[in-house]
């Protein structure tokens, strides 16, 4: 991990949604991180913390309220329409819900082939069909599935179709938006292993969004922890799991159940209390302050900046800044 190349730079990304006249949901608020080429960057957090919005804004599916996303030297949100189309060939997304992400009126062949059609990747129908067959085999489906409709498949199979659709344009960067959260545990392993194998074969870079902490530990090289639109901790996945600094990360990790009662009883950190507050018109200061056991006055007033406290380990917490 020494000479690594930055593929994606997210700089102070903000995405706010207006609801009604006065209320603003700050789904993503001032998030910055880098993704290196060939790595898996995990983004974890509770439901509604802005992970998905962050991923979709990076791909340009949402217009950001502020900040910028630089992919390989180009500003994703400042591209003209032709360059934007080219960018969709480089960066793809696998969706969370395998049921709503496939058009029910299209055959699997057309769903997978759509990207090739849009980018004119195939000369004729025969080549297109061959490539769709290849992709179907890559993701572990049959050739015969090509003329089937999505409703004829199970959730896991549909997710494979979604992955094949993303792979069809031969991207180098894929946002995996909770691709396993809607699946059974046994299928989750299959899909994750598939994604990992594809990464090795095709040198892909992943932004892996999930709330499954066990999974992210296994698959990512580095992990960013999000809380209510903010990035609170960012570290290599081993570092993060061994030595979490932010109280939220500590609480989050201690809430992972361990199927061993002795370890479970010896757990030191208290699990998180209370509910995740709403991100509508959030107060100033640290977003986590209302649930934090160590919150001090300053936590309610000033937003803590993300600082590097160890090598490659960033934390946004006042406790760490001035111990």
């Amino acid at each position, binding site marked *: 991990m020494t000479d690594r190349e930055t593929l994606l730079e997210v700089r102070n990304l903000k995405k706010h949604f207006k609801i009604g006249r006065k209320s603003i949901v700050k789904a993503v608020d001032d998030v910055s991180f880098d993704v290196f080429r060939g790595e898996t960057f995990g983004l974890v957090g509770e439901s509604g913390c802005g992970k998905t919005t962050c991923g979709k804004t990076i791909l340009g599916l949402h217009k950001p309220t502020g900040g910028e996303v630089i992919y390989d030297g180009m500003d994703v949100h400042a591209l003209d329409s032709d360059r934007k189309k080219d960018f969709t060939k480089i960066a793809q997304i696998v969706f969370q819900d395998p049921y709503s992400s496939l058009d029910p009126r299209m055959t699997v062949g057309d769903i997978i082939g759509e990207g090739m059609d849009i980018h004119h990747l195939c000369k004729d129908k025969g080549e297109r069909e061959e490539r769709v067959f290849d992709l179907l*085999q890559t993701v572990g489906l049959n050739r015969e599935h090509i003329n089937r409709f999505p409703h004829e498949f199970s959730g896991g199979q549909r997710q494979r179709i979604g992955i094949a659709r993303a792979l069809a344009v031969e991207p180098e960067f894929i946002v995996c938006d909770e691709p396993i959260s809607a699946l059974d545990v046994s299928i989750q392993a299959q899909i994750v292993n598939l994604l990992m194998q594809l990464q090795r074969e095709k040198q892909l870079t992943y932004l892996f969004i999930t709330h499954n902490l066990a999974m992210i530990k*296994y698959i990512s090289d580095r992990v960013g922890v999000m809380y209510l639109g903010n990035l609170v901790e960012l570290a290599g996945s081993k570092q993060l799991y061994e030595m979490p600094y932010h109280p939220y990360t500590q609480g989050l990790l201690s809430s992972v159940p361990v199927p061993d009662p002795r370890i479970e009883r010896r757990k030191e950190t208290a699990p998180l209390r209370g509910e995740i507050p709403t991100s509508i018109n959030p107060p100033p200061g640290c977003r986590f302050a209302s649930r934090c056991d160590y919150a001090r006055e300053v936590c309610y007033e000033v937003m803590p900046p993300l600082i590097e406290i160890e090598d490659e380990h960033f934390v946004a917490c006042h406790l760490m800044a001035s111990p």
Partner: protein
Amino acid sequence: MVSRESFVNLSDEVFERVGVDPEFSEHLDKPSLTYWADVWRRFKQNKLAIFGLVLMVSILVMIFVGPLISGKNYKYMDSSVKNLRPNSEYWFGTDDMGRDIFTRVCYGGRISILIGFLCTIVMFVIGSTLGALAGLKGGWVDNLIMRFAEVIGNLPYLIIVVILTMVMGRSIFAIVLAMSITSWVGTCRMVRGQILQLKELDYIEAATALGADTARVIFKHLLPNALGIIMVDITMSIPGFIFGEAFLSYVGLGVRPPETSWGALASAGQQQLMFHPHVLFFPCLMIVLTTLAFHLVGDGLAEALDPKLRK
């Protein structure tokens, strides 16, 4: 889930990908069907819908072929055969001027169904264009179109029709215009609702993420998915327009004699209800059967098109 200790030691070897061996994977016997073949398969299973379709086709055949078989002219008056009951010569009897009712019902049917189709086309074109525009664009475009639709929808229908037929004369064009000028509002709302619902779905976003432009999203994804409900709406509104035309002709605002329609025939027959009920009976029967046929087909289509009812 594994215990935390062993989970730290997970290596890549533990996670071996289980591939699919084409030799042993499931074998699919069922032939693949295209979407519309599948719809037709489910439509065929619905006996009532098939009955409706057969009825609809028979009515259309009768209307277009009937006058050729009977060999009569719908305008020809024969004073020697006034008010005959149905018999082998005059299948539906004759009216008070000695005209063959069967031939007149066939000719009237052509006008009635033509008006039904024309109104539906106008309604569909205006309604779905404005509805799709409102749903897709949103914001002030949506607001403008929907407020406009509300204003149009709140105009009293009968008054519009009376004014239009007075201004433009009692032609088919005037009737079609008068009936479709207010009726597109419902289609517009329905299409807008459909588009609003569909455009939030992930597969639309997936298409955008693949680089699809707006035209592709509309024609490849939004329209095919909204088409089912639109088609049901179309089949259901044709009988509505036939009925509306019948009503207008009945109150004397419809087509002008000697042209005729089912409504005009019913209107004429009503004056002789006491002594010659068959003059009223046959046009009414045709209206009822046509309405029934279209509704049955529409219901069958709705069922066949709804993917949630798929087995």
